[in-house]
């Protein structure tokens, strides 16, 4: 073994008490950093998974779209198909999906239940690599090929012109008007089923009033059949976001070639509906874009913004929302603040530890001048003395890093073994979990090492520069 390493290790052992305290502080700091980071990663993953069910990395929408419309009924993006194609062409590896959204209301007049609203997302079960609803079904089933997705006609509604200064009034009925018509299949969030147990159950049919346009007050009544319940991991989302086949929504919103005509009754209004429609798959409300998975996930927010910038340059005239915009919209900037605080508090503690290491070593060197002087008399070069103290820093850093990682792994295992979970809405529970990625481990290991080596470098330099005579004389004084 290298003599400088040997002597350094001896020093660490000799001062094991004070170095031990420093190691404990650093490793606990790293433990809390790792736990917080791993928990944040987990929460990010949860939010990521669930929000991306409806948002993906980036959403492209009409210029008068606001982020709130994502939950409601957006305005149509006329050339959705063309934009989706362009993105996939210009950004290889990026996936797109045209989505239609609508706002629904249900439970009006139901005994013992209040009316509630849902945001219906139209998904294409065959061509939607973005939503991963299929794997989230907890009861019932996902869409099947022979599901009655299409009616072949638009839903029925009647639009009554407001007489005089009264506004127009549109009414749709959810009743099945044709006997042989089957209801549209729909997948509902598990939380909604818990909130409205008498209305929502797999196999039940439900009348929905759908707002069909973002601009006008036009409503259509439809009947849906609940084929499955899903659980995304975020109970709040599961209370409001439902899924229908995108073509069903296109039909309901009239995105296609409508050939029938309306009956206009003077003085009353317009009866509309049952118009034969051939849906146009190029039409939709928004285009979702999924970027390729980044190489690492240390900064998902930064990555999200990066992706947004790229998309903006391709569709400069449209609204582009990043996943992070959406996150901020639903959760505020809390996540960002917490992340900042985790790093900030760690930086402060580590800085203090670094300063402590420096001062402890300074005082050790002061006590050891005679030893340093004798080493120099025995032929030790400045570099060797420097290395003795630098190695001490390295050892402290390595031990602190490794201990920190071990302790946090133990804590994480204890938590998951004990099964901690958080109370969520409607009696649902959100498990507390951790996701440790290799960047977190690398940071938890390298940061204390870099820190303590840096902190040790200053006293090490001082020790190396001691004049041997001074060192020997000073030592004599202390006897």
């Amino acid at each position, binding site marked *: 073994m290298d*003599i400088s390493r*040997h002597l350094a290790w*001896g020093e660490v*052992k*000799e001062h094991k008490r004070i170095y031990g305290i420093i190691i404990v502080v650093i490793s606990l700091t790293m433990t809390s950093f790792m736990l917080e980071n791993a928990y944040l990663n987990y929460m990010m993953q949860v939010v990521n998974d669930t929000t991306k069910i409806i948002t993906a990395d980036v959403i492209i929408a009409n210029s008068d779209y606001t982020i709130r419309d994502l939950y409601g009924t957006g305005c149509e993006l006329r050339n959705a198909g063309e934009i989706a194609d362009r993105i996939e062409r210009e950004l290889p590896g990026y996936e797109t999906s045209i989505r239609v959204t609508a706002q629904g209301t249900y439970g009006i007049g139901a005994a013992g239940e209040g009316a509630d609203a849902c945001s219906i997302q139209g998904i294409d079960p065959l061509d939607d690599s973005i939503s991963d609803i299929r794997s989230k079904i907890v009861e019932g089933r996902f869409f099947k090929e022979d599901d009655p997705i299409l009616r072949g006609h638009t839903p029925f509604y009647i639009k009554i012109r407001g007489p005089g200064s009264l506004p127009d009034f549109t009414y749709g009925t959810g009743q099945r008007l044709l006997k042989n018509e089957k209801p549209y299949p729909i997948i509902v969030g598990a939380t909604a089923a818990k909130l409205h147990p008498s209305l929502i159950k797999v196999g039940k049919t439900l009348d929905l009033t759908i707002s069909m346009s973002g601009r006008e007050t036009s409503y259509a009544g439809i009947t849906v059949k609940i084929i499955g319940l899903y659980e995304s991991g975020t109970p709040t989302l599961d209370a409001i976001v439902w899924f229908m086949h995108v073509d069903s929504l296109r039909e309901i919103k009239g995105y296609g070639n409508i050939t029938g005509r309306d009956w206009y009754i003077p003085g009353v209004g317009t009866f509309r509906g049952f118009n034969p429609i051939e849906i146009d798959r190029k039409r939709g409300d928004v285009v979702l874009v999924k970027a390729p998975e980044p190489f690492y996930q240390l900064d998902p927010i930064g990555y999200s913004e990066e992706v947004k910038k790229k998309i903006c340059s391709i569709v400069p005239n449209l609204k582009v929302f990043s996943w992070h915009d959406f996150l901020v919209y639903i959760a505020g900037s809390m996540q960002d603040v917490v992340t900042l605080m985790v790093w900030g508090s760690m930086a402060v503690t580590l800085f203090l530890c670094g300063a402590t290491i420096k001062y402890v070593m300074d005082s050790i060197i002061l006590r050891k001048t*005679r*030893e340093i*002087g*004798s*080493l*120099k*008399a*025995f*032929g*030790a*070069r*400045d570099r*060797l003395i420097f290395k003795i103290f630098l190695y001490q820093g390295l050892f402290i850093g390595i031990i602190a890093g490794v201990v920190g990682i071990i302790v946090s792994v133990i804590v994480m295992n204890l938590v998951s073994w004990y099964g901690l979970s958080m109370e969520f809405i409607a009696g649902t529970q959100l498990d507390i979990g951790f996701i440790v990625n290799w960047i977190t481990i690398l940071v938890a290991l390298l940061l204390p090492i870099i820190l303590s080596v840096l902190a040790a470098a200053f006293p090490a330099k001082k020790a190396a520069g001691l*004049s*041997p*005579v001074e060192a*020997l004389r000073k*030592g*004599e004084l202390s*006897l």
Partner: protein
Amino acid sequence: MSKSYDPIIRLEHVSKVYNEYGTKVLALDDISLEISRGEFVSIVGPSGCGKSTMLHCMGLLDRPSSGTIYIEGKDTSKISGKEIALFRGYRLGFVFQNYNLIPRLTVLENVMLPGLIMGKNKKDVEHRAYTLLRETGISHRADHRGIHLSGGEQQKVAIARALINNPVIVLADEPTGALDTKNSLDIMNLLSKINREKRVTFIVVSHDNNISRYGNRKILLKDGKITEDIKKKNRRKYEHT
């Protein structure tokens, strides 16, 4: 063994001025001196006369303010810091008044230390350390920690340590300063035995006249100047009473 130079150390008009807080102290005042290979030199003088300063300069631990020190014919004012370290490691051995054993190391490890610092093979160094411990009569304590030994024993370990790299000169600053009479004489006997048997040059600083009887040359220092330089024909051998 390398080519033998004589004199092994030569001081030419060496002065050392300390300048602390504006007051100048002339610790060494124009000293010229030659020491031959195999000599056993005692440097004596009252406290503050510059003995340690002279020893430090000769041991390349300090540089003189003016003048030149030649060791084995080499002008030491012209060599780099790295070379000075090599020189100290390979050619010089040091014995201090307060032994300076590294407390957490064992006796054996302490003796091996200068060998390991010079990057020598561990096995060889260990073997040589044992031999030296046997010669200094302390091998039975090889695995004990240095600080658990008595002063006399510690100094014997320090002497073994000074010899580990086969130095041509051993410099000792008051090696018996912290010891009682019996132990002092023990140590001086040991040094003089090594000097005779190994032909290692010894320069021993002391202010004790009993100690300066050892060796074949006595240099008296006063106020940084050599006032006497006595070479003895017959080396006196100490007889135990």
